[in-house]
């Protein structure tokens, strides 16, 4: 392997990993509050189509349009997450059922593709696209330049989000309360923490993050809209949260690892390496099994990981 190959693997790892970072971070927040959101895929698709529609329709300077598109995508994801929050927190519907229903409702044969048709963005080619920045004018520095200093603003934004969420979780009171709500809502409630509010807020923010992840597809990876273009990234994001032991730093590692794996076949082909493409397309899933197996033993030994109340609705009055 030469340096060139490593650089192009790293670059595509970041490109394909960024939606996973964003959506995974959102799922991580929701799960830390005890809400399992399986609707991520649907929220990503709604974010993707909404962002694309706004960027195609709005006039004005490119930057303003892109920012508006990104905000719209976040709102679309948040709106879907509000439904999930209402169903799973207030009505206490089974969270798995509610999440799956939302993914189907908003998914490839649902709302997102309907919106794509109604808004007529199906065959269009994108007007605006996020451009790669040349940070400090150093994008030509070997290896480091193309990987770290020549990304679009959204990538840097995702890094800021990761840092913010990490700080929030482990260095602020509200992050502490959030962890308590996901671990032991009863104790948190007894301590005067509003369990319902924490769950709503983090589920909705989680949905907004998923929307952002979707927007990255249509605004950065490829400026087009096709039905179901996230191709299961929402599910990988959910799996990543488990791999990462619900920790944002590990989530980034995992997301870029998966980003690298899902683009590996393509990258290697362009560098003249010939292997069956099926091998590469199966890599993420082989990886999933391996990491899960390793994770479960470590989990059992060190008792870190799954928020104890994940997926369990909180009912205060039990007679």
């Amino acid at each position, binding site marked *: 392997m030469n340096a060139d190959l490593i650089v192009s693997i790293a670059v595509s790892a970041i490109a394909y990993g960024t939606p996973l970072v964003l959506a995974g971070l959102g799922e991580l927040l929701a799960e830390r509050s005890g809400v399992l959101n399986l609707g991520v895929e649907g929220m990503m698709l709604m974010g993707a189509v909404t962002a694309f529609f706004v960027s195609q329709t709005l006039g004005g300077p490119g930057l303003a349009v892109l920012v508006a598109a990104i905000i719209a995508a976040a709102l679309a994801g948040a709106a879907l997450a509000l439904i999930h929050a209402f169903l799973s927190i207030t009505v206490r519907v089974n969270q798995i059922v509610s999440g799956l229903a939302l993914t189907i409702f908003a998914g490839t044969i649902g709302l997102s593709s309907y919106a794509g048709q109604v808004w007529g963005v199906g065959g269009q080619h994108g007007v605006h696209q996020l451009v790669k920045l040349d940070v400090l004018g150093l994008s030509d520095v070997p290896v480091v330049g193309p990987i770290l200093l020549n990304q679009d603003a959204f990538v840097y934004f995702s890094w800021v989000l990761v840092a913010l969420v990490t700080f929030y979780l482990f260095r602020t009171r509200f992050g502490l309360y959030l962890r*308590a709500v996901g671990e032991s809502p009863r104790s948190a409630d007894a301590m005067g923490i509003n369990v319902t509010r924490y769950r709503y807020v983090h589920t909705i923010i989680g949905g907004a993050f998923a929307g952002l992840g979707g927007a990255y597809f249509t605004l950065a990876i490829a400026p087009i809209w096709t039905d179901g273009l996230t191709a299961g990234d929402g599910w990988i994001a959910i799996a990543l949260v488990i791999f990462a032991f619900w920790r944002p730093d590990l989530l980034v590692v995992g997301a870029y690892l998966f980003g690298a794996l899902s683009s590996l076949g393509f990258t290697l082909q362009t560098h003249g390496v010939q292997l069956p493409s099926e091998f590469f397309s199966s890599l993420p899933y082989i990886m999933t099994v391996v990491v899960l197996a390793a994770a479960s033993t470590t989990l059992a030994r060190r008792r870190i990981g799954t928020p104890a109340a994940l997926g369990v609705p909180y009912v205060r009055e039990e007679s």
Partner: protein
Amino acid sequence: MDLRPAGVNPTAANSATAGAPPAVAASGVTKRFAGGVVANDRVTFEARHGEVHALLGENGAGKTTLCNILTGLYRPDEGEIRIDGKPVRLHSPHEAQAAGIFMVHQHLSLVDSLTVAENVVLGWSRHGGVTFSARTVEAEIEEIAARYQMAVDPKARIWQLSLGERQRVDILKALYRGASILILDEPTTVLTPAEIDQLFSSVREMVAEGSTVIFISHKMPEVFAIADRTTILRKGRSITTLDIAGTDARQLARLMVGHEMSFDVHPRAAGVEPKPAPAQPPVLALEGVHVRGDFGIDALKDVSLEITAGEILGIAGVSGNGQRELAEVVAGLRPFTQGTIRIGGENVASGDPRDAINRGVANVPEDRMGTGVSPNLSVAENLILKSYRSSSPHSGPILLMGRAETQATALMARFDIRAPGPGTLVRQLSGGNVQKVVLARELSSGPRLVIAASPTRGLDVGATEYVRGVLVEAAKQGAAIMLISEDLDEIVELSDRIAVLYEGRVVGVVEAASATYEHLGLMMAGAAS
């Protein structure tokens, strides 16, 4: 002496404190739950500034419900709560805490995966602000802990602590937040005599500062040791409020239960047969047993114990000194790394619960709801959980549930399990009845060895007496019984011999008849052998 029923005139009762309104008062409080259960029925109660007020009553008398109302966890259907004379409506624990009311629950309100310091600032911090400085909080906790002599490592995670230490954390949490009314729900269950003394001196310090401590207990000696006044609840109603100085245990017991109860009869004293000489090998013999604990270090070190048929061996010790591991290793739920365990003279396999069951080991585990029963299965199903391989009613692989329910009905009568029917889900039963289900399953097969871990924790007086009676009866039938309990009274009362565990070692085995509390207490504290 104040013997007037508490319901008569709440304001008149304040005369003793020169017109100052009570710190907290409830009048006519009623709380109904779904299914028509009235947990509190027009309860009237008040606690003054600077007093320890005991709430007495059997399980199900409504003490915990009342406290949950006082702490804002439940809202009363009727009635009024007053703090310092002012009517309040507490909508959440947060509001109750803002008013200075804190409760240390039996099921502690701690988050296992967080540290002591993180738990203490959960939901409230002295510093406000957004960020959380672990170091500052840890220093503050150490200061309070030193003042009240409640040693605890603020950096430790809760799951690493013993139950006694966890309780200390919960109390520290309230003190850290400046509690002025502290409700302690059966706080002594998990403590040693020395720890109880320590707790009581902290409590006395609190009331000396003008705070109010509401003390929920079943144990008369403690109520007399610490409380100034007591309110007795029975079947959801407040019966009366009395000055402790003007009453006695017999009167309180009668008011609690509604009829006279005997506290003097020593269950073992009743059967006065001399102990049989140990001619046959002991039922259980541990020799040099080492067991690894959850954290990778040895939880049991070089433990050697014997129990003969018909004998009750009490295992005393502060929680977290290897009791749980001892119960688990004998039940085959945890492997041992060194030594031998023999049951009836034969070596048992390490960490093989089925081998233990086949050799006649019955296990009444500490964690009743988690390990003892399957809460979402019915009484009948729980009763056949262990015997499904052998004696349970089956035809090939098919369970004959009709016959199982008939058997269950018989066991329910024999073990006094109060449930609507054998099809009732176990999670709907009270703690005492759950324990009876466990006992019925474990003892009906005529075991050789019974492991009973904290068998009466959290049970009311009636259920406790029943459970103890069942264990004594099993010993009379020839079973060897290993009784693990943090309740020293229970150990002394029931055991023939008492072994004391300290930091995973047996520091002494004494005859119960010649044991003194001082000596046991010193051994439990690691100060004598």
